[in-house]
C-alpha cells in the first residue's frame, strides 16, 4: 500500500490543477501498463471525516475532524502488486514532482496476505476472512 501523506494544502482542501491530474494520470498509466497498480483513491481533507475511539470496555466516542498533525494523515493511497519492497520504492521514486510542489511524502506498507495469518486461519473462518481480502 502506497500512502500519499497529507500536507497543509491537502488539509486545506486545495484541489489539484489540470497539470497535476495529467501528471498523476500519466504515472498511474505506467503502473497499470506494468500490471502493478490494483487501485488508487484520493481522500478529502480530514474536516470531512471522523474518528471513533474504542476505550477497551465496549464504549465508543466519536470525534469529528479536522485532525491536527497534517503530515501524519493520509491524503490518498494506491495498492500495488510487486515482487519486493525495493521494486515499490523504485516506482515511488518516479512519483510526479508536480505533486506537493516536489515535496510529497509517501509511505510504503506491505499488505497482509492470506498466508500470513498462520494457524489463526481455520476451515471455519477461511471463507469470510482470507477470501474477502484482495477485493
Amino acid at each position, binding site marked *: *500500500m502506497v500512502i500519499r501523506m497529507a500536507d497543509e494544502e491537502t488539509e486545506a482542501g486545495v*484541489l*489539484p490543477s*489540470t497539470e497535476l*491530474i495529467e501528471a498523476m*494520470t500519466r504515472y498511474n*498509466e505506467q503502473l*497499470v501498463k506494468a500490471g502493478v*497498480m*490494483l*487501485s*488508487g*483513491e*484520493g*481522500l*478529502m481533507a*480530514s474536516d*470531512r471525516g*471522523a*474518528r*471513533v*475511539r*474504542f*476505550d*477497551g470496555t*465496549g464504549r465508543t466516542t466519536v470525534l469529528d475532524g479536522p*485532525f491536527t*498533525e497534517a503530515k501524519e494523515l*493520509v491524503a490518498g493511497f494506491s*495498492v500495488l*502488486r510487486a515482487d519486493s*519492497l525495493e521494486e*515499490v*520504492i523504485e516506482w*515511488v*521514486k518516479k*512519483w510526479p*514532482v508536480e505533486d*506537493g510542489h*516536489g*515535496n510529497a511524502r*509517501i*509511505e*510504503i*506498507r*506491505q*499488505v*497482509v496476505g492470506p498466508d*500470513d*495469518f498462520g494457524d*489463526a486461519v*481455520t476451515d*471455519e*473462518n477461511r471463507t*469470510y*476472512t482470507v477470501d*474477502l*481480502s*484482495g*477485493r
Partner: protein
Amino acid sequence: MRFMVMIKADERTEAGVLPTEEELTAMGRYNEELVKAGVLLAGEGLHSSAKGARVVFSDGVPSVIDGPFAEAKELVAGFWLLDVKSKEEAIEWVKRVPCTEGVEVTIEIRQVHEVDDFGEAFTPELRAKDQELREKEEQLRLAVRDDR
C-alpha cells in the same frame, strides 16, 4: 459516497502481533455483514511499519527512509473501503467493529474523492482515461484474486 475507514496502529500491531483465531473469526464475521449489506468495496490489513519505507521528496529529490516509524498511533494498521449513503452511516458501521476487550482502538473515517469533486480541472479527456485505468485495475485485481 465512499469512505476509507482506517484502523490506527498501536504497540501491538507495530510489534507484528497477528490476530488470534478468535479475533480473526470475529473480524471475518463483521466483514461478512458488510458484504451482505453491499457496503464493502475493499479491505486489507497491513504489516507493521518495520516492513515498510518512506520516500520523502525535497524539491523533487527523493530520499528513502526505512521503517519502523515512530508515532504508532498515527500509522495505519488496516483499512476498509465502504460505499454508504452518509458519514453517519459509516460511523454506525465503524462502531460495530469487533474490538478486543482491554485494547484501546482508534478508527479514522475519511471521505473518498469522486471525479465530480475536481470540477473543470478534471477534463473530459482525463475522465475518460481515469475510467479506462480503473477498468484495467479491476481486471488486475480479479487476476490477483484468482491467483490466491
